[in-house]
């Protein structure tokens, strides 16, 4: 989103409230309800999003007055960040706003950082912007390598980054890949997301991304907002997205969060989900094709079983019989397989496995 548009939205919010006060009304704003009851899976688009339930926040209400004042303060602060072209974390924001409300008032604008989290979400929903648009950064996590050049306008400088020239470390995905970031050239043909950093390093050493002309990404576990946005933007360029995780509930959950979005961030909708993503493996069915894996399974933990049971209850997962069958295999055998197990025979087998899967279209939806 263009920064100008975000600025206009913030100013607009202020103007609406000022008009309300001029008319003798309590300043209010409306935001979609983010509770579980208002989260729905939209089958036609394939991701989780908020329903129609709205909630009005108002200043002249004892239970809302404080958070309302805080929300306006955050909006005003964000507007200043945008104007100054400076970024900070939510913690930085918290320190910027942690001051006393007045000499005779024994109360601070913010007492705890946790207070600011919910109202940043309120603002995101009310204005249809992302926190990154408000110049609020999140922790970076995720590394990329591949035939892709991006241009980064940052801190008054312009840098071109060639993701094929990042050596053994790769390029670390920033928290915001939208504002000030452009794709200059993408030669790669698809995106491969690998759950674990160890496997990413394996494939990077194999120069897998070069040989197979793909963009190799590891979210290092659960994908960060920046990583999800990058994958989304690459998918928008028409690149197929394949995901490769452990064969356990946690790995699969990482896949489903990338694909449909999560309950927590359902308010972000399409921007943070990639419904077209496909799941390459590892699957329980792989044991049948690659007998050496049989000896390399490990016992599933209680949390794996619990998560598998939970996932089988989600309508957006149990609508796929392939997944129900995979999850049931975990529940039945009580076993799981790690990505790393593919290196059991030969280290370079990992690449072969991926090639074979893509070639034979052996993926799960």
């Amino acid at each position, binding site marked *: 989103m263009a920064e100008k548009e975000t600025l206009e939205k*913030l*100013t607009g*919010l*202020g*103007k609406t*409230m*000022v008009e309300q*006060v*001029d008319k*003798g009304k*309590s*300043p209010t704003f409306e935001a979609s309800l983010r509770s579980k009851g208002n989260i729905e899976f939209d089958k036609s688009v394939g991701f989780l999003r908020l329903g129609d339930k709205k909630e009005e926040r108002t*200043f*002249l209400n*004892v239970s809302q*007055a*404080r958070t*309302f*004042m805080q929300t*306006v*303060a955050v*909006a*005003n602060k964000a*507007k200043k960040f945008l104007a100054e072209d400076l970024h900070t974390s939510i913690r930085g924001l918290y320190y910027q706003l942690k001051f006393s*409300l*007045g000499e005779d*008032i024994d*109360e601070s*604008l913010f007492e705890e950082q946790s207070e600011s989290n919910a109202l940043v979400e309120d603002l995101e929903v009310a204005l249809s912007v992302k926190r990154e648009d408000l110049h609020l950064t999140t922790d970076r996590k995720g590394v990329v390598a591949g035939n892709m050049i991006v241009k980064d306008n940052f801190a008054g400088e312009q840098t071109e980054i060639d993701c094929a020239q990042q050596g053994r470390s790769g390029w670390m995905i920033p928290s915001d890949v939208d504002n000030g970031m452009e794709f200059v050239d993408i030669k790669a043909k698809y995106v491969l997301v690998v759950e674990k950093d160890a496997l990413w390093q394996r494939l990077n050493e194999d120069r897998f991304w070069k040989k197979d002309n793909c963009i190799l990404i590891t979210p290092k576990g659960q994908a960060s907002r920046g990583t999800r946005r990058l994958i989304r933007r690459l998918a928008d360029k028409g690149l197929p997205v394949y995901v490769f995780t452990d064969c356990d509930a946690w790995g699969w959950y990482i896949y489903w969060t990338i694909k449909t979005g999560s309950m927590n961030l359902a308010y972000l909708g399409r921007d943070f989900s990639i419904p077209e993503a496909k799941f390459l493996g590892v699957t329980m069915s792989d044991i049948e094709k690659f007998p050496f894996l049989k000896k390399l399974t490990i016992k599933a933990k209680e949390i794996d079983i619990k998560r598998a049971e939970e996932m089988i209850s989600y309508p957006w997962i149990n609508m796929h019989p392939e997944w129900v069958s995979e999850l049931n295999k975990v529940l039945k055998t009580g076993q799981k397989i790690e990505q790393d197990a593919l290196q059991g025979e030969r280290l370079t087998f990992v690449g072969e496995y991926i090639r074979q899967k893509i070639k034979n279209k052996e993926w799960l939806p």
Partner: protein
Amino acid sequence: MDHDIFGEFREYSVAEFFKKNRQMLGFSGKVRSLTTIVHEYATNSLDACDEARILPEIEVWVAEEGEERYRVKVRDNGPGIPEKLLASALATMLSGTKFNRYVQQRGQQGIGATGCTMYALITTGQPVKVVSKHKGTAIKCSLGIDFKQNRPIVSDLIKEDCSPDDHGLEVEGTFADVKYEKSGYGVGEYLKRTAIANPHATIIFNSPEGERFTYPRSIDAIPRKAREVQPHPLGIGPNDLLDLTKGKYESTKLSSFLQNEFTRVSLNKVKELQELVPEVDFNMKPSELTWEQAEKLVAAFKKVKWIAPETDSVVPISTSQIEKSLRNILNPEIVYVTERPPKIYRGGIPFVVEVGIAYGGDVNKDKEGKPASGGVVMRFANRAPLLFDAGGCAITQTVKDIDWKRYELRNFDDEPVALLVHVVSVHVPYTSAGKQSISAEDDLVDEIRNAVMEAGRQVQRHLSGKRKEKEKVSKKAAILRYVNQISGDLSELADEVKKKEKLRANLEKMVQERFE
């Protein structure tokens, strides 16, 4: 070893029995004994005044005479007692006008004043001194008891004429093994509560420390006379039934005795009873009734469907009078008194529960206005305060079981609250002859609970109103302190920095209006 174990067997008189079992009359513990003495005399005075339709004026003196030895004098303006009844009223056990009458009274068993005489004799050997002014004759005498014969011993009798307008009774005795205490069990508290329950009486107390407490009457109306009523079949046991047959019914049959002496017993009901106990001959003389037959009859009573007894035999203090006396004596912030219709327990005994609640103000505070105690439960039965045996009393238990948090009283024991619970009945079911605690009859407990909860709700209404008022103010303050900050942020956010003061003024005005 061959000696006759019955060699020393002899009959004990009632007086001897009570001499050996004085705790049954309330003479257990030194503080309690002193309060019991004052209680017995004061109750008699109040009952006598009410009976004679006189507004009572009772003055009590307690003076220390030595180690755990006190002189107690009680003087009233009642009708006095005629010469021929004087000795038996004050020195014969189980005598008097109250015994065996089915009417609501403070005293019931007719052992009270005689018990005091007895107590004086066994602790100091001194008879009690009495002055009775009755219908123009003043009698002064000393009264003792012949324990073996249960007979009064009268000495130093002086008889004089006096004005018929000058009437009343004065009793003075010296007692040992008693102790005066300024506590919730002491004479002072007892008389204060007596005054609360008898707003038509003026009560004066002269304490051993030389203080004089006066509780002037709050109203000038003598309570309506409680009507003497016939017992209801469900209100009696075999023993009561046999007592009722004593003496008077030589010429009648059992069937007509039942119809004449009980309320709600008709010819049809007698027939029903006959069918239930065919083995009892309803043509027999009532006086020939045996214990077994009486037991069977009482069991049969319980199987028949009776119309409930009339309830006008109970006379409550009344809502407005309790309210007046609580205000007068406790000076609280608020008072609420329930007004509830009479109820029946055991199917046959009418009763009324009155509950008054006094909150805040001077309640439970000492003379300097500092909190002296937490929540207090004042128990009363037929206008007499119950100070002792609280633990076993149905009132205490019921009050304890109530969840006071529901009534905005966080912890009853810590609140400036005084709860008056008054049980009125022709037959109050005391747990013992000491008459200090009421037994937990189901119907009674239910009614006490409902009445206390009704009073509690009124306090709650008052307190929650107060709390809401306070909250309103604090709500206003809570929002007002955010106005400055939000005005600044809003004006900047909307690119209208100059509007800050106007925004602030408008918002302040809105908050003031909203939370007025």
